[in-house]
């Protein structure tokens, strides 16, 4: 039974639905652009510089690690570019170049590659890196100071600082529609709410991020903020304010949904998102930090392996 014709022989199944990591990364990058482009228009060429440097340096760090660890080059899957862009979306437009490059080093190398590359990172790499640089050089990420030299036609005070220092009445001047349209200062890609929501809805519909996580995260923020607001409306701002300021939207749609550090089962996904949302508001309202999203996401990343044990019984196992 030997012939010269060489047929392809492989294992079943012989069909594939055509999905791939690179198409997923491409789609998330495109959805992220909906928030990044308005950010760049608002902050000018400096923001373009931060975003491009961040993406480029993230790819280069991954290449360097591929080279050092003698692994096949993996930048083609787009994950490094995605991490770079997520990181840049959280930065103020005036971040110095060395902080961007160091940050992507933390994200790609410390956050992802030393754990074994894509799929093995216990924390969202961009969030981990952002937290590290924020703790290390806090003054760079004080949005009020960082964006001091910009002239805006809206109240250029970081809304979360206002609500933290002066209570809920201080943020009454922010109309929710203005916050939604990005009339607030903050990270390059994290203030234009409508773009983040459109991008997030697109990704949820296409199945690239899980709606269970995003929706429950937002529900958690809403419920917790509502509770605080109900308890003391003078001191704590309402749910709308918490949903549209800081990193809430980018966190719900782009950061908490990162595959490797989030659960895969239905109930765990809901619990994971809800916990993240509640923690966000808890940290904002009762903690010392101004924004709670990053810490909340790190904590839910940490509990992800435990809550993902809530799973249905496999076929033929138990009653």
């Amino acid at each position, binding site marked *: 039974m030997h012939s010269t014709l060489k047929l392809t022989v492989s294992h*079943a199944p012989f069909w594939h639905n*055509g*999905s791939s990591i690179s198409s997923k990364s491409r789609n998330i990058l495109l959805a992220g652009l909906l928030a990044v482009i308005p950010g760049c228009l608002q902050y000018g060429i400096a923001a373009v510089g931060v975003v491009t440097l961040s993406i480029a340096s993230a790819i280069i760090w991954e290449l360097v690690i591929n080279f050092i660890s003698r692994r096949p080059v993996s930048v083609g899957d787009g994950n490094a570019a995605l991490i770079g862009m997520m990181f840049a979306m959280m930065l103020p437009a005036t971040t110095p170049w060395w902080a961007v490059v160091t940050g992507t080093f933390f994200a790609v190398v410390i956050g992802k590659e030393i754990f074994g590359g*894509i799929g093995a990172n216990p924390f969202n790499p961009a969030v981990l890196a952002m937290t590290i640089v924020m703790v290390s050089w806090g003054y760079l990420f004080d949005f009020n100071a960082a964006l001091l030299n910009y002239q805006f036609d809206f109240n250029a005070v970081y809304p979360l600082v206002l609500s933290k220092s002066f209570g809920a009445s201080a943020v009454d001047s922010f109309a929710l529609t203005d916050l939604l349209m990005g009339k607030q200062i903050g990270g390059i890609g994290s203030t234009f709410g409508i773009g983040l929501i459109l991008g997030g809805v697109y990704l949820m519909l296409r199945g690239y991020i899980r709606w269970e996580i995003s929706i429950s995260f937002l529900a958690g923020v809403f419920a917790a903020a509502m509770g605080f607001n109900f308890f003391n409306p003078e001191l704590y701002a309402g749910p709308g304010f918490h949903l549209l300021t800081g990193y809430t939207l980018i966190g719900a749609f782009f950061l908490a949904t990162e595959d490797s550090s989030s659960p895969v089962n239905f109930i765990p996904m809901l619990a994971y998102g809800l916990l993240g949302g509640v923690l966000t508001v808890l940290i904002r309202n009762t903690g010392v930090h101004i924004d709670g999203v990053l810490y909340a996401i790190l904590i839910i990343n940490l509990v992800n392996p435990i809550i993902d044990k809530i799973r249905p019984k496999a076929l*033929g196992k138990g009653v």
Partner: protein
Amino acid sequence: MIKRSFFGLVKPKLQYEIIDEAPAEPISISASKQILLLIDQFPDSAGNDLFKTGDEVRRGQKIAMADDAPAYLLSSQSGQISKISEFVGMLGKKYMAVTIDVKPDAKRDVKSDAVRAVDESFKKACQAPSLDNAAKYLAGLPGKPDFSVFSDPEKPVKAIVVCGVDNDLLTTTNQYVVKNNIIAIKTGIDLICKISGISHAIMVVPQHLEQVAGSSGAIVKTVDSEYPSAHPELIVQHILASDDGKSMSESGIAFFSAEAVSAIGAAYNTGIPPLEKIVTVITKDGNKRLVSAPIGTPLQDILSEFNETLNEGDRVVFGGPMTGTSVFSTDYPVLPDTDTIIIQDKSQITERDDIACINCGECVRVCPANIQINQLIRFLEAGQYEEAADQWDLFSCIECGFCSYVCESRIPIFQHIKLAKHTLESMKAAEEINA
């Protein structure tokens, strides 16, 4: 090939093929020169003293390694054995490959020649139908009926299930038989009930065939049209369990395909076992045709009927797109369980990859057995098969292949699972021998 739908909010759905209202007659193909029979080989039956090269065989004659060997095939043509060799299939499974040169006069016009050339031993044996002679002569019929379940003393068979559904995509063989041959199925069911002494017969069909199946006399159950609901394990779990609760899934169930049942009916009625297999052939351009070919017909003859030429790197799949087997030679024959033959052009093949799992969870959401595949695959890739079986439900897998189909990293998950199961089973077998 069905691609990922644009919207990915809900889990992907694959629909079983539904046969046309009036399906075209199957194209009749016969073997031009040779037929090849692959017969399961068991380690303890290594010697073959029954047949040797040059022996004459008649149509319907039993070809086996030994007289009482449980695995055998019936020669679908009269001719002369020209070669007996060993063939190694999936996961090192060994077969005895018997090549039979077809007698020129038996090639065409099967009807008139067949009666004269046919082997009479079954006719003699089937005067009084019994489980014994069914197991002895009929396990090589199209549809591969399995009579060994009746002889398991630990699991007494309580029900006979006739599958009028096809258990892979694109396949329409069983639906065709149900649609066109329900009378033969009825005869077959009556016969099996009679010889086994079991009166509980259930027929499982797709919804659109419910009415037709009603005339079979069996209890009719329907399955929905989404893959893999027609998988035997899921039929037991979802359809049968709701009737009798747990007792059903724990007792033995004898599964027969509709094609096998109709063949059993015809075999006892006429004394000549039917040996034409109905196969759905899908050519490179995606056209589907039903083909009726004698068991043992090599792939080459089917290709030439459809004027298909194979080029370097193309793939030929015996069986459906989810669970079939790809073959490496155009000599590979139609076997009793070959329901589908798919010919894929090189450009239609998606290559598999060795990127690590990214934990997206698509596989977990589609798994009909609720296995945590994202965790399982980590153990399988590391070769930790025992942990995979103990902690992550390796043996709950029903082998539908859906996880590999949706995998974003394109990991050959199904292959890992098959290899792990095979390794563990052969380890267990080796331990039993040593003990």
